């Protein structure tokens, strides 16, 4: 008992008096004027049919799901729409987990009435087989934070979620022609709901016997107010639903004034919802367009490039070994080979940069024409039976290497005789040249 008393939020006498006296001077505690809405932000989730609405400090999440069910007997060719509310105790300590409270039921009913009785969502288009299977659309509204005026925020969340929701396409077919085939979203684009208009709820709070009227009350104002009225209207100025709660009686003229203001606010909010939904739809379309070409490009590119690099690495290693041996064998190299080795050294340095770092393949940073591999080279390697040509090349280089090694050995053995050295030098310089030519050829192409 005491635990509950300590957790409930309470208003002091000071706040109550101050809110009332300030309202007499047309002032509201958060600095707004009486007919100002709090800043509204609408966000969408990654999946279709999820929305998150923030109205000042109030935070509501909407989520729409659907499934095929048997229709009601009196409406065999209409789908169903149901609103479920979830008041989390995290949002407000007065909300109890599990059992829906009075406010939760009222909130669900007001939104349900506004959407259903105004026939905002086309129910007949949700029918698959009359009397057999129709779509049942379920809207879940989660209150994440209670900063006052939950009805408006939840209603906007429901509208935004419904506007972006897409149900999977299904056709009737099969052997007996009665089977319902559901197409997964990858096969056929899911179809959005048909929404004729957006009924927007606008809540007013009445103070001091209905003489003072404010729009979009905060939770503190809700604790002080005498009465409340929610008018659900669409952009065309049609009244879809009206809910009057609280004890205070209100004059007819005041209600008419409320409806005029509500229609203006409804048009304003409708345009906000529509622009948010449009932005989401364009982003969604872009997301779908991007997916296919990038994935194909990765599959082709990565494997091909990786293979080439390995081969080139092997070649370079061979070259390196060869050069080292050469240097060891004859310190008095003639200028030609010295120049050759130094130039190949440079090349080694230049190209060596990409040996160490791992190849990063990704849809965004994959470049079809990397710095060192020309497009013509890739094309030729793709056109020819790739592995076969590579094997040939490898064999050639191995053979060349073998001959080279033998030459080096002989050179080391007979290094004392100058004439012999020169003669043996010639094949030496020529044989690495042939190898280097092979490498060079590649390198030239790779530039």
């Amino acid at each position, binding site marked *: 008992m*005491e635990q509950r*008393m*300590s957790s409930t939020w309470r208003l002091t*006498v000071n706040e109550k008096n101050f*809110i009332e006296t300030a309202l007499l001077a047309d002032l509201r*505690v*958060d*600095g707004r004027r009486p007919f100002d809405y709090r800043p509204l932000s609408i966000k969408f989730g990654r999946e279709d049919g999820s929305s998150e609405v923030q109205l000042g400090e109030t935070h509501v999440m909407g989520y729409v799901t659907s499934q095929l069910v048997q229709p009601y007997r009196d409406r065999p060719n209409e789908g169903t729409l149901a609103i479920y509310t979830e008041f989390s105790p995290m949002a407000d300590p007065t909300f109890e987990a599990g059992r829906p409270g009075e406010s939760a039921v009222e909130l669900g009913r007001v939104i349900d009435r506004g959407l259903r009785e105004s026939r905002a969502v086309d129910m007949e288009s949700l029918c698959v087989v009359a009397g057999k299977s129709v779509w049942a659309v379920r809207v879940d509204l989660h209150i994440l934070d209670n900063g006052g005026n939950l009805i408006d925020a939840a209603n906007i969340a429901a509208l935004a979620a419904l506007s972006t929701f897409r149900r999977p396409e299904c056709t009737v077919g099969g052997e007996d022609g009665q089977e319902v085939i559901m197409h997964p979203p990858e096969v056929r684009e899911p179809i959005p709901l048909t929404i004729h208009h957006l009924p927007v709820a606008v809540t007013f709070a009445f103070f001091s016997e209905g003489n003072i009227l404010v729009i979009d009350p905060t939770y503190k104002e809700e604790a002080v107010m005498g009465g409340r009225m929610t008018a659900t209207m669409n952009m065309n100025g049609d009244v879809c639903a009206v809910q009057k709660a609280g004890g205070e009686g209100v004059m007819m003229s005041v209600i008419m004034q409320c409806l005029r203001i509500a229609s203006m606010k409804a048009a304003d909010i409708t345009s906000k919802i529509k622009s948010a939904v449009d932005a989401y739809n364009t982003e969604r379309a872009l997301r779908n367009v991007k997916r296919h070409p990038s994935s194909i490009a990765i599959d082709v590119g990565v494997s091909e490039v990786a293979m080439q690099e390995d081969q080139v690495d092997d070649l370079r290693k061979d070259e390196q070994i060869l050069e080292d041996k050469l240097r060891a064998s004859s310190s008095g190299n003639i200028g030609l080979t010295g120049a050759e080795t130094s130039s190949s050294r440079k090349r080694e340095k230049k190209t060596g940069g990409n040996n160490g770092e791992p190849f990063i393949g990704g849809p965004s940073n994959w470049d079809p024409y990397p710095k060192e591999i020309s497009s013509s080279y890739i094309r030729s390697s793709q056109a020819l039976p790739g592995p076969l040509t590579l094997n040939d090349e490898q064999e050639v280089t191995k053979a060349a290497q073998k001959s080279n090694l033998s030459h080096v050995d002989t050179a080391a053995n007979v290094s004392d005789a100058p004439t012999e050295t020169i003669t043996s030098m010639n094949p030496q310089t020529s044989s690495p040249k042939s190898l280097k030519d092979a490498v060079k050829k590649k390198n030239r192409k790779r530039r």
Partner: protein
Amino acid sequence: MEADLSNPCPQSLINKNVVPGDVVLDLSSMVNQTVKLGVGLRQECDSLSVFKAGKLRFLKPNKYWVESSHKRYVPSAEDTVLGIVVDSKPDNFLVDIKGPSLAFLPVLAFEGGTRRNIPKFEVGTLLFVRVVKANNSMNPELSCTDASGKAAEFGPLKDGYMFETSTGLARMLRRSPTCPVLEALGKKMSFETAIGLNGRVWVNAPAPSTIILVSNAIINSEFLSGAQQRIMVEKLVQRFSDA
């Protein structure tokens, strides 16, 4: 961050953000010294480690604690807080101080309080009180007097407007020298405030518009630097005088 046991350097962590698990102090090197721990720190064998995220504070000669901002309040003795009267019992008023349980305010804990002159508070009265006792197993105990038994500004607050903020903002407002937002506002208009360490702030002024301006300026200042606070106040006052 700093988990090097061989060379703990507490000076480097002071006024820095710490997270649970950080080792603040090595006790093995300081024999025959007394260290006083506040919230968010605990002793583990020879070291002091943090178990709450926040800023590490140090007060000479030997007091360490972790400061953080919450929407809830954990009562601690000698804090001055704003409470709301929930119920009155023959011996105690039950007062809500945003803590995990209601606090007791003995009916005699007023200046010159006797059985004859028990004050009457209706439910919802706002009180500026001092926490006298706070521990885990009992409800906190409050008092409307200072340590010497004088009233000293404690007691019910009349009129004005009360709003709730975080404990971090309340501490910032209470800091000395006066925080920029209150200083800037004070230059432009006259108002009265009472700031409780439990994150409740009461503002009073002759005109309701001043109260609204001051309270919104305070709420806005939570995550602003000193210069930003002054600019924000400047702009608010400008808009207010235009309207």
